[in-house]
């Protein structure tokens, strides 16, 4: 399996992201691995309209990004203060992460166009993004540029990596 894109936030259109191959992995931290065209992926970036928003205060915000080719399910965790997952990290760091997550959650409103980055994960078999970063886009041409970026990267980089490195 090709690893050169593993730590890159790959720009994928929703229909492409939702058709990634999911494989069970022996790793306890990443029980499912994701690949596209033989390349192992772990992070993704998407841009689109927020079309659903489900907030569980102090737990998570689940929302949907519609980029016109499909919908991407996103989860933004808001439980950093209470979660044992963060108990080994320094309290100031955890507070900072929690503050950022709360700000992102407030910015994600129905109808806004958001650029979301995060880890590719799976929930009930459906590919989703576990969000680490959110930028609200106000320029109405940004979505088009994202489509063109995705097309160019797929054709020039993502589609050819396995063949050039095998």
């Amino acid at each position, binding site marked *: 399996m090709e690893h050169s894109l593993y730590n890159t936030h790959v720009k994928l259109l929703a*229909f492409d992201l939702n*058709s990634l191959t999911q494989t069970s992995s022996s790793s306890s931290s990443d029980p499912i691995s994701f690949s596209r065209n033989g390349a192992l992926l772990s992070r993704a970036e998407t841009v689109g*309209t927020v079309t659903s928003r489900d907030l569980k205060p102090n737990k998570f915000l689940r929302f949907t990004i519609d980029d016109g080719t*499909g919908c991407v399910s996103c989860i933004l965790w808001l439980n950093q203060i209470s979660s044992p997952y963060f108990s080994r990290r320094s309290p100031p760091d955890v507070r900072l992460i929690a503050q950022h997550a709360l700000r992102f959650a407030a910015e994600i409103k129905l109808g806004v166009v958001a650029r979301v980055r995060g880890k590719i994960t799976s929930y009930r078999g459906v590919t989703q993004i576990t969000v680490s970063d959110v930028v609200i886009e106000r320029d*109405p041409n940004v979505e*088009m540029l994202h489509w063109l970026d995705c*097309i160019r990267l797929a054709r020039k980089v993502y589609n050819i990596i396995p063949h050039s490195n095998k």
Partner: protein
Amino acid sequence: MASSEITSGALVTLQDLHPSSPYFKQGASLRVTGKTRETFLSQGHYCRVPVSLITYHFTQAKGKSGLHDYSVETAIATIVDGSERLKINTQHLRELSFRVGSIYQFIGELLIQPDNEAVLQARMGRNVDGIDLNLYHQSLQLLRQFQADHLKKPAT
């Protein structure tokens, strides 16, 4: 709410929405873009027009449409792109303010009426003034070609 419950609004131009188009289907989820124009008023319709807004709140008049008198209130805007136009039902977009001549993008489901006229039941809407519509149309063609190529040869 899982993404599987939300249908993506397929990117279409108003030119795509002719009766023989694959997008012209009852309940189709679509994303449309166009400039807002004044909506024509039919005789017997009552109209309240807040200053600078073009969301018209019609009360269907008795006998005109066959509906019960004064029982249905809608909020219809019309968008145009070139010579094409489409009615948008904006009743679920109460927080969106409209300006005549501005460009808006709507996501929603197509309702095809018995007379074959389509109205998009919008669930999302935003002002996209500043959008380059020529670039939008060209990008859309490239995107459709890319999706068609991908379907022929999936990259999974």
